[in-house]
């Protein structure tokens, strides 16, 4: 089959590789009909997340048809022929974390848990196509994928809804939604959202679903700010204004009730501290650039909440802990507990409350992945979200 392989920093190649096989009793094989490039894949592309191996298949947002199931799969939950969306986190459904609905913290799905323990103390769940520290599972930017614990994660999709409307249930819609849920929104609250990429877009819309009165969206790309405005958000361009001052002004020296970092480890900013962050990241003295996290803590109202759906990989410097402590803030974060959200959000899509396909800017065949990664990273051609079609042929240029 064809698969998108990470061959090194900024080296993405499409290779012919062997088809995946059932390895464990609860595995399934899915023939992929739609797959996507996530903003978090760009952290891998740029080489900022440790423990990828040359030859790894990337991709964690995919859906398709079940073509084979292992002997240990609960057939009531999933069977051959089902059309499914696969969540990016892998969960066993049996450990204490899963029973507590903390699905992305499953104890039993990371074969390299010891690696994650070195960096984090304890290991979160395994993830598709997202470094060996997180399990090293082959990803879904391919024609087929092996899906472990297939009777827990994948959700059945009825016929009649196009892939484009439901494929984002695999990650970014639930991730934005949990980012909003983590804001502890009370009706009428003001929420500031840094990052108007796909997760930010879903987060903005989810904040309104939770009853937010105002959402202030922060980015620098005009097309993304426009998309945020279409959802009803006010916008700030961080190239033009000092974000913390502007938020103070817009909220009458009160501050947003919650601040959301939907950017993560490769945030952009201005000034001396940002230049130092970049230099330290280049020289591997600091893996993450916490520009947005610092702003979110400084901007947040007293007693407010900082929600972090943006991805961080390891350590950060100069976080204003004094502000965090003395203002009595709360931080909520984590990889998304996918299985909590997929069914209710599918129902919202079916009810016509939201059509997630609005974020798509490019639909391309799988072979176009190398160029698509570059385009998405460099924000060329107003790229907000790339959807890849594994079975479509590349058009002759």
């Amino acid at each position, binding site marked *: *089959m064809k*698969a998108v*392989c*990470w*061959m*090194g920093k900024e080296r993405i*190649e499409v*290779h012919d*590789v*062997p*088809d*995946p*096989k*059932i*390895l*464990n*009793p*609860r*595995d399934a094989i899915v023939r992929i009909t739609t797959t996507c490039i996530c903003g978090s894949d760009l952290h891998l592309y740029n080489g900022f997340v440790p*423990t990828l*191996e*040359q*030859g*790894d*298949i990337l991709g964690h947002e995919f859906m398709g048809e079940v073509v084979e199931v*292992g*002997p*240990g799969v609960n057939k009531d939950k999933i069977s051959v022929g089902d059309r499914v969306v696969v969540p990016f986190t892998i969960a*066993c*459904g*049996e*450990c*204490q974390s899963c*029973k507590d609905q903390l699905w992305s913290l499953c*104890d*039993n*799905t*990371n*074969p*390299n*848990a*010891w*690696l994650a323990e070195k960096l984090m103390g304890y290991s979160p769940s*395994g993830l598709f196509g997202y470094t*060996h520290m997180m*399990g*090293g*599972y*082959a990803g879904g930017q391919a024609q087929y994928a*092996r899906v*472990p*614990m297939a009777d827990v994660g994948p959700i059945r999709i009825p016929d009649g809804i196009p892939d484009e409307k439901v494929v984002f249930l695999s990650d970014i819609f639930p991730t934005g939604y949990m980012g909003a849920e983590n804001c502890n929104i009370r009706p009428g609250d003001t929420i500031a959202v840094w990052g108007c990429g796909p997760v930010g877009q879903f987060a903005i819309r989810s904040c309104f679903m939770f009853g937010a009165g105002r959402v202030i969206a922060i980015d620098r790309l005009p097309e993304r700010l426009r998309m945020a405005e279409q959802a009803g958000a006010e916008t700030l361009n961080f190239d033009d204004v000092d974000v913390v001052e502007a938020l103070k002004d817009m909220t009458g020296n009160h501050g947003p009730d919650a601040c959301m970092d939907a950017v993560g480890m490769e945030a952009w900013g201005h000034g001396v501290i940002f230049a130092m962050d970049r230099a330290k990241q280049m020289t591997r003295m600091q893996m993450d650039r916490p520009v947005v996290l610092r702003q979110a803590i400084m901007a947040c109202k007293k007693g407010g909440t900082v929600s972090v759906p943006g991805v961080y990989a390891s350590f950060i410097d100069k976080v204003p802990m004094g502000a965090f402590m003395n203002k009595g803030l709360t931080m909520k974060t984590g990889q998304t507990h996918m299985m909590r959200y997929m069914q209710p959000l599918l129902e919202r899509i079916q009810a016509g409350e939201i059509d997630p396909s609005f974020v798509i800017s490019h639909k391309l065949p799988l072979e176009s992945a190398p160029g698509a990664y570059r385009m998405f990273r460099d924000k060329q051609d107003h790229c907000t979200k790339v959807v890849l079609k594994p079975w479509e042929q590349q058009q002759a240029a």
Partner: protein
Amino acid sequence: MNQSNLPFSRQASSQFPFGSKGLLLGAGALMLYGLTRRSKSGLALATAGGVLAFRAAKPQSAPQNTRATFLVNTSPERAYVLWRDFQNLPRFMAHLKSVQVLEGNRSEWIAVGPMDREVRWTAEITGERPNELIAWRSLPGSDVETSGSVEFRRDPLDRGTYVTAEVRYRIPGGSATAALAGIFGKHPEFMVREALRRFKSLVEAGETPTISGQTHGPRGLHGRTEEVLFRETTNHPEPQAASGLPRIA
């Protein structure tokens, strides 16, 4: 622990999968190779080989203990039954190829070391309390000399069972080989922890997580080196799904 006074003879090897003879050979080869390189890095290699050879030729280092505890979401009764059936052990001890139950309270264990070298030992049960404890030790004539125990203790707060494994072992060559073993994931400390982690997965989820045998793009030298560093090589080429073993959960 009731076998802390277990006698460890000087000639005995260890849980570690290459004996001191093999180590001496390897160290010699490393020295020769380093010297023929006629470069600074070659000299460094030769020196490392020399140190290793010196360590290997030295008498056995003192026996060591490693101990780990995992909380498993099951009852002590069930955990005990699964562990007591020794044929189950290779399902969660990645370094074991097979365990054959013999007559009496004996069993034959076969582990696989580097270069597919088989390491065998006969173990006998030295202590047993149903649903609480199993203790064993290797018998004279085995390739390794080791002893160990596993204890099952119900969490008083009802969150499952604390499973504690303790293994006594000796590493020929001491700290130098221990460091080398650490790199390849063959250090007993690592193996005991991973065995417990996999036991927990097998009991709770019915399988242990793996990516061994999955598809991937061309690894190249870079990718293959990382596979070794991330300890992803395995003694179990056959997928769990094809084993035909009954589901545990």
